[in-house]
C-alpha cells in the first residue's frame, strides 16, 4: 500500500512533442484514481511512467516515500493489467498467475497457496490447468487480474482493461473490479477513455486533454461543476448541450427564448457578451409533467421538436437550432478535442417517460436554470463554476503555467 504523488510530470518525445505536460496528481493511499480523456491525451503515457515502462523527462514520481524516477519497473513493486492482458501463452493459467511469485523466488507451498487464493477470489479454479489461448475474453481478463493481485504490490495499475470486452461483460467486470478494489483497499490508478467507467469506478477522476490536466475531482464534482467546455462535454452521456447565449439584466437569451439566471451565477458573467451556455439534457423537461413547486425555479419556452426517441423510462427529444459562427467554431474545435464527429447544432432534451410530446409538435419545454453553466467562448473556461465544489482545477491555481502548457500542446498539435 502506498500513495503515489506525481509532481510536475513532463514527457517529451524525441521530436519535442509533449505527450504529458506539467501534470501533478496526488493519489492517496487506497484511493481509486481514474485517468480519463480522449485518445492521445497522454493518459496511458502517464500510467506507463508510473510503472516505469516510459522514461520521465521532467518532474518527480514518488511512490510511498521513494522517488522512483530512475528505478526499473521491477523495483517499483507495482502490478499492472494491460489493455490486451499480455498473458504468457506458453504457460498455464496457474503458472501465469504464479509468474511474479516464481520470479520473486517464493517457495512452492507459498506459490500454491497464494495462487489458489487468487483463483478462488476470481473464480478461476476450474481453469487453472488450461492455457490462455483456450479462455474467453472475460476469463483472460480475470487471469490478468490474478497475476496482479497475487503479489503484495504497492498499487494496481489498469490500462483500459475493459476495452476489449463486449458491452455486457464490460459492465460485469466493471463491478468486479470495483468490488475487488474495495475489498483489497489497494491504491489503484485506472486509465480509460470511457466516461461511464470513469464516473462509476473512481473515487476521483483526472481529466486530461493533450497531455494537460484539466480537472481533478470526484465524479460528482466533475459532473456538476466542470472546469471548462472540454470537461463539460466529455463527462456525461448524452453529452451536455452547448448553446449560444447572451446575458442581459440577469437573464440569458438562448436561441429558444429567455431564461432567468440565478443571482449567484448572474453576478459572475459579463453582460452583453456572446457566451456559450451548457445545459445537461436532464435539466430540461416537458413543462406539462413538471411539479408546480419546481416549475418556478426554472423557465419555460416553446419550440418545435424534430425527433423523439422514447426509451420507456425516459425519452430524448431533438431540437435543431442555429448557432453563431463564433460559437459554432468553438464547438467544432471542441468536437475535435473530444474525438467526436457529430455536429452539435441540435439540442438534446431528456423528457420523462410519461411525456406525450411527439415528433413535429410545438412543445412547451421547461429548463432548470440553476444547473446551467456559462462558458467563455474564447478560452472555454466555465464562468459560473463553484470552485469549492470543483476539486482541483490547475488552470485556476496557476493560470500562467497552465496557459503555457496549453499553448505548448496546441503548438504541437498544429505541427
Amino acid at each position, binding site marked *: 500500500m502506498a500513495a503515489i504523488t506525481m509532481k510536475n510530470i513532463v514527457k517529451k518525445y524525441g521530436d519535442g512533442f509533449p505527450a504529458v505536460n506539467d501534470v501533478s496528481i496526488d493519489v492517496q493511499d487506497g484511493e481509486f484514481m481514474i485517468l480519463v480523456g480522449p485518445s492521445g491525451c497522454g493518459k496511458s503515457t502517464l500510467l506507463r511512467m508510473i510503472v516505469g515502462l516510459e522514461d520521465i523527462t521532467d518532474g518527480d514520481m514518488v511512490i510511498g516515500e521513494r522517488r522512483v524516477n530512475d528505478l526499473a519497473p521491477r523495483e517499483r513493486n507495482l502490478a499492472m493489467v494491460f489493455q490486451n492482458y499480455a498473458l504468457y*501463452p506458453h504457460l498455464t493459467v496457474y503458472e501465469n498467475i504464479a509468474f511474479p511469485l516464481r520470479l520473486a523466488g517464493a517457495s512452492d507451498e507459498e506459490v500454491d497457496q497464494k495462487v489458489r487464493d487468487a483463483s478462488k477470489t476470481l473464480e478461476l479454479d476450474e481453469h487453472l490447468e488450461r492455457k490462455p489461448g483456450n479462455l474467453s475474453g472475460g476469463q483472460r481478463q480475470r487471469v490478468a487480474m490474478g497475476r496482479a493481485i497475487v503479489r503484495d504490490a504497492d498499487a494496481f495499475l489498469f490500462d483500459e482493461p475493459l476495452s476489449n470486452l463486449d458491452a455486457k461483460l464490460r459492465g460485469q467486470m466493471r463491478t468486479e473490479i470495483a468490488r475487488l478494489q474495495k475489498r483489497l483497499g489497494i491504491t489503484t490508478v485506472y486509465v480509460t477513455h470511457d466516461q461511464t467507467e470513469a464516473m462509476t469506478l473512481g473515487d476521483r477522476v483526472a481529466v486530461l486533454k493533450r497531455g494537460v490536466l484539466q480537472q481533478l475531482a470526484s465524479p460528482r464534482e466533475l459532473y456538476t461543476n466542470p472546469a471548462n467546455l472540454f470537461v463539460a462535454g466529455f463527462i456525461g452521456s448524452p453529452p451536455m448541450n452547448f448553446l449560444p447565449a447572451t446575458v442581459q439584466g440577469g437573464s440569458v437569451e438562448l436561441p429558444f427564448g429567455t431564461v432567468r439566471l440565478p443571482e449567484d451565477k448572474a453576478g459572475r458573467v459579463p453582460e452583453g457578451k456572446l457566451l456559450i451556455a451548457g445545459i445537461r439534457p436532464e435539466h430540461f423537461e416537458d413543462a406539462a409533467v413538471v411539479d408546480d413547486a419546481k416549475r418556478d425555479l426554472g423557465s419555460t419556452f416553446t419550440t418545435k421538436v424534430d425527433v423523439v426517441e422514447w426509451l420507456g423510462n425516459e425519452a430524448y427529444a431533438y431540437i435543431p437550432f442555429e448557432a453563431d459562427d463564433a460559437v459554432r467554431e468553438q464547438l467544432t474545435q471542441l468536437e475535435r478535442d473530444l474525438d467526436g464527429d457529430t455536429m452539435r447544432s441540435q439540442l438534446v432534451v431528456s423528457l420523462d417517460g410519461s411525456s406525450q410530446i411527439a415528433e413535429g409538435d410545438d412543445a412547451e419545454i421547461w429548463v432548470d436554470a440553476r444547473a446551467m453553466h456559462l462558458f467563455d467562448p474564447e478560452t472555454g473556461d466555465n464562468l459560473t463554476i463553484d470552485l469549492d465544489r470543483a476539486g482541483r482545477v490547475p488552470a485556476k491555481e496557476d493560470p500562467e503555467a497552465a496557459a503555457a502548457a496549453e499553448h505548448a500542446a496546441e503548438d504541437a498539435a498544429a505541427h
Partner: protein
Amino acid sequence: MKQKIGLGVGLAAILVWCLLPVAWIISLSFKSQDAVSNGSEGFLPQPGGGAGWQNYSDVIGDDQFRRAILNSIGISLIATLLSVVIATLAAYAIARLEFRGKRFVLTTALVIAMFPVVSLVGPLFDMWRTIGIYDTWLGLIIPYMSFTLPLAIWTLSAFFREIPWEMEQAAQVDGATSWQAFRKVIVPLAAPGVFTAAILTFFFAWNDFVFGISLTSTETARPIPAALSFFVGPDPFSRPASLLAAGAVVATIPIVIIVLLFQRKIVAGLTSGAVKG
C-alpha cells in the same frame, strides 16, 4: 469432386518426382555389387542379385565412413547450436532496439547469404592454411555459420516482431530483469522460429559439399558428403555403387530424425491467446 481428383493427381505427381530418386537409391543399396556391375535392371533385385543388409553392415563397419558420420554430426550440431544462439540474440536486438546501422546490418546479412559459396573457397583455403585451422572442425564450422546466420537472423527477427511488446513489459512489471523476461517469456514464444532456424542451419551444414571437400584433407574433419566421394572401395576402376548407395541412405537418416524431432516443436500459432480475444 473434380477438384479432389485433380488434387490427388497433382500430389501423386509431386511425390513421384521427389521420392523416386530416393526409392531408387534404396533399391540400389540392397543389390549386390556384382549384380550392379553386370547391369541389374528393374526396381527390385533380381533373383540371386540381392545383397540383403550386407552393404549396410559393410558401410557401417568401415572406419572411414564412421569417422565421416561422426564429423558431420559434430560439425553440423555445433554450427547449428552456435548459429541459433547468436542469431536469437542478434534478431532480438534487431526486432526490439532502435540503433544506428540496423538496416545496414540486415542488408549486409542478406548480401552474405547470397554470396556464391564457390567464390569463397579459394580465399578461405589460403587463410585457413595460414592460421592453422585447415582440416579441422572449426575450419568448417566458421563458414557454415557465416552462411546460415543471415537466414537465421531474418527468420528469427520476423518471429520476434510478431511477439507483442506487452509480453515483455508485463514480465518486467511482474519483477523480471530484461534477461529473465527474454529467457522466460520471449524465447519460449519464439520457439517455432528458433527451431525453424535450427533446421535450416542443420540442413545447410549437413548437405554442404564444396567446403567439405576443399577445406579438409584427411578424415579428421572430412564430413560425410565429401567422404562419400572418396569412398572408392577395393577396386579403383569399378566404383562400389551399391555400397555408396547404402552410405547415402545412412547419411540421410540423421536428417530425417532431426526433422521429425524439430517438427513437433514448430507448432504454428503458439502465440494465440497471448493478447485480446
